[in-house]
């Protein structure tokens, strides 16, 4: 019930006395209001800002957080107030909702933040007042589109197990996904251009020869042009058939605009082949050649601007229709007027109303060819009115179309910009995530170092290590450690995992695979010497390996050889978040596990299997190993837990 009803209910009930005398049956008893407590002021402390209101104000909406007993969970006994750790600015709108019954959407707030607050306080957004609802819905839709865009781009990531057909379709739709697709894209573009130029040059007069007069090139070098045409049509046909084959829904593909353009572009050639040298229909054959010019529309697959233009025209269909309609009306009116005005004149060109159409169109669009000119005074007057009104009528719908185009174009620009920024954004996020993973590995390393230091090292070093991990981190790492123990697998970093994958694919280790299979785990491999000279939060140390007989490091040896080769030349970028950096102790460390901090490269290439060095997510591989390059999944590990958990 809205506020109004709550406040006016006593009134309505009192007014019910008016029914009593006419009532035919006795009245039911009224409910007793047992909670006769006085209306009191409630203090709401939202992140330090204090709000006060009457209890009855909040009770108006009993199905929300503040109106129900749910708020008791937030009651602070000592301060005798309700404390909410939320945004005080948004809370203003929410409290105003209780007070006035209308929920407003503050325009400067982020839509998702606002939504979250509403959900927290149990208020459905549909009750936003009319004044703000439209804005809210618009922002929400925009946000959703943006998120959808991001998701769609994610689909660019290659899914494993795609059939040939799907791969082909993807290649056709997004040329940048693979080199083959790019090649294909450029080849078809080139041939479209060739075809169009051929069609144009065909008609240029080529210069006189002794035998014939000046004739167009097409007739002089018939064979050459025919070969060109054939080649282009071959390519186009092949392309069309391939697309048809690869399309997920052939019926829909055949109905789409681009496919129709494709068909129209190549059909004349085949029709020409079939009915060549037939004099009767050669006229029609010549007409068909006109359709060859449609090949130029195939460029719209290659040009985004063209597509936007087409889309704009489609979306402005109503404005264009209006323009056309009003123009037609004006043309008919003015043509009639001009015809009757010029009827009197002797050598008038305005022989009929349809003949005057031409004059009207030329005048209204301010072309003014001058082939038809009014001679009488009345004709001239009406002619001038015609041209003035033409200017107005045409100028009216044009800004609408222009603004539509501009909006769509900018939207596209934004989408492109976002896509470009996304790669760097994702890379940075990945670095942060892998940083947290590396923290765990680093801490394990520390743990072992600790053990060693207990045996060998100085007090200081130990203290240095201990101080570097906060309680939260150590608890987190302990949790991860428990997981490791549960599954009898260990966490490794990406680089090492990759190497393992590769090596196991390339070589066979009859002696070692039993150990692998018996272990069932890929352990942390060691890394060759690496260091970064840049300003990193992490210092990557390297050391020689020490093989511990009791370790699970049978693989370490193997890895050492391979890893050195692979580690060098890898790209290093800075890790952004402040991770506990292992203090640079003595260069020689007797640690068993030396996590290699890959600090991933910025761009995750989509060419799989081509760059073994490119970072991939690691996962404790199961033995036996399938071939690495196609099987190592790109998903981030389960380890990418938020550091501040």
């Amino acid at each position, binding site marked *: *019930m*809205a*506020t*109004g*009803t*709550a*406040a*006016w*209910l*006593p*009134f*309505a*009930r*009192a*007014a*019910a*006395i*008016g*029914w*009593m*005398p*006419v*009532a*035919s*049956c*006795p*009245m039911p*008893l*009224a409910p*007793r*209001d047992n909670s006769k407590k006085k*209306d009191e002021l409630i203090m709401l402390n939202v992140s330090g800002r204090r709000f006060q209101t*009457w209890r009855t104000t909040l009770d108006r909406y009993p199905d929300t957080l503040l109106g129900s007993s749910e708020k008791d969970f937030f009651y602070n006994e000592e301060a005798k107030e309700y404390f909410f750790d939320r945004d005080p600015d948004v809370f203003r709108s929410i409290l105003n909702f209780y*007070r*006035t019954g209308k929920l407003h959407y503050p325009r400067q707030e982020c839509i998702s933040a606002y939504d979250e607050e509403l959900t927290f306080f149990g208020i459905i957004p549909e009750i936003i007042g009319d004044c703000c609802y439209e804005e809210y819905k618009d922002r929400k839709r925009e946000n959703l589109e943006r998120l959808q865009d991001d998701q769609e781009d994610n689909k660019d990531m290659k899914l494993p197990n795609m059939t040939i057909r799907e791969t082909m379709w993807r290649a056709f739709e997004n040329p940048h996904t693979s080199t083959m697709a790019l090649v294909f894209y450029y080849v078809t573009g080139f041939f479209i251009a060739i075809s169009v130029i051929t069609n144009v040059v065909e008609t240029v007069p080529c210069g006189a020869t002794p035998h014939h007069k000046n004739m167009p090139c097409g007739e002089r070098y018939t064979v050459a042009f025919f070969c060109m045409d054939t080649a282009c049509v071959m390519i186009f046909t092949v392309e069309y058939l391939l697309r048809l084959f690869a399309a997920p829904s052939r019926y829909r593909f055949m109905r789409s605009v681009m496919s129709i353009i494709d068909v129209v572009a190549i059909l004349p050639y085949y029709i020409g082949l079939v009915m060549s040298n037939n004099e009767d229909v050669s006229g029609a054959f010549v007409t068909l050649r006109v359709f060859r010019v449609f090949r130029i529309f195939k460029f719209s697959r290659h040009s985004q601007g063209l597509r936007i233009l087409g889309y704009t025209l489609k979306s402005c269909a109503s404005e264009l229709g209006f323009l056309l309609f009003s123009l037609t009306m004006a043309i008919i009116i003015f043509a009639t007027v001009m015809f009757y005005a010029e009827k009197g004149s002797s050598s008038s060109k305005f022989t009929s109303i349809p003949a005057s159409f031409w004059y009207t169109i030329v005048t209204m669009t301010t072309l003014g060819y001058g082939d038809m000119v009014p001679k009488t005074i009345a004709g001239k007057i009406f002619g001038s009115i015609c041209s003035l009104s033409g200017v107005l009528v045409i100028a009216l719908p044009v800004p609408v179309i222009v603004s539509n185009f501009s909006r769509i174009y900018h939207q596209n620009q934004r989408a492109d910009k976002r896509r470009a920024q996304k790669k760097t954004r994702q890379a940075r996020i990945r670095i942060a995530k892998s940083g947290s993973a590396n923290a765990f590995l680093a801490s394990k390393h520390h743990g072992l170092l600790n053990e060693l230091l207990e045996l060998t090292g100085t007090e200081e070093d130990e203290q240095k290590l201990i101080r570097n991990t906060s309680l939260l981190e150590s608890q987190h790492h302990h949790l991860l450690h428990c997981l490791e123990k549960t599954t009898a697998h260990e966490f490794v970093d990406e680089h090492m995992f990759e190497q393992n994958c590769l090596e196991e694919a390339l070589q066979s280790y009859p002696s070692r695979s039993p150990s692998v299979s018996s272990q069932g785990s890929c352990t942390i491999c060691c890394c060759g010497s690496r260091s970064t000279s840049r300003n990193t939060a992490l210092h990557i140390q390297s050391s020689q390996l020490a093989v511990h007989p009791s370790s699970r490091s049978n693989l370490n040896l193997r890895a050492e050889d391979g890893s050195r080769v692979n580690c060098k030349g890898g790209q290093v970028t800075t890790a952004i978040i402040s991770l506990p950096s292992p203090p640079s102790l003595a260069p020689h460390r007797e640690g068993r596990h030396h996590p290699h901090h890959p600090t991933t490269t910025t761009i995750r290439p989509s060419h799989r299997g081509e760059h073994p060095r490119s970072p991939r997510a690691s996962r404790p591989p199961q033995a036996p190993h399938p071939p690495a390059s196609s099987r190592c999944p790109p998903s981030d590990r389960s380890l990418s837990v938020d550091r501040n958990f």
Partner: protein
Amino acid sequence: MDGKRLDTISERVDAAAVSAPDSIEDELELSTVRHRPEGLEQLEAQTRFSRKELQILYRGFKNECPSGVVNEDTFKEIYAQFFPQGDASTYAHFLFNAFDTDHNGSLSFEDFVMGLSILLRGTVQEKLNWAFNLYDINKDGYITKEEMLDIMKAIYDMMGKCTYPVLKEETPRQHVEVFFQKMDKNKDGVVTIDEFIDCCQNDENIMRSMHIFENVL
């Protein structure tokens, strides 16, 4: 009336003199009509509400109508919210007229509170008086069958269509007949205030129901 201060930016334009350029000012000025009620002490004296009760009442009232007055349309809207199934506008119209004792087209807080005072804290006599006033649409001191029929139809309208048993056309009329049979002692076709009060006081049901809403506030 004392205490009624109208803050307006421009003079109230007569409806006949409203022309297109003035309509903007019209809109402006309508929105700035405000009304401040008399002081708390005066209202306390005039009604039977305590100070606290008046405060609560006023806060609710002012929250709903920040300008301090309720016009008939707003009143109908508010009342209609309580009866979502039917059409409460006719009855709300009669109610509005019953509350609007000075007949100026708008309900101020004083009217509101006076009416409530009678209904919630008044004697049975006063309540019956008020009810009579409600039924007597033209305020001539007699309730005719037509008036009663209007009231009855308005009440039945609030029920809406979906009732059990199904509402028939002649139900209000029958109800009016029953009422008149009971109330109209001298069978002259109208019910006077004395007949009404007499009859009601002799009817137990009605007497009992008069006390139902006493603890509303």
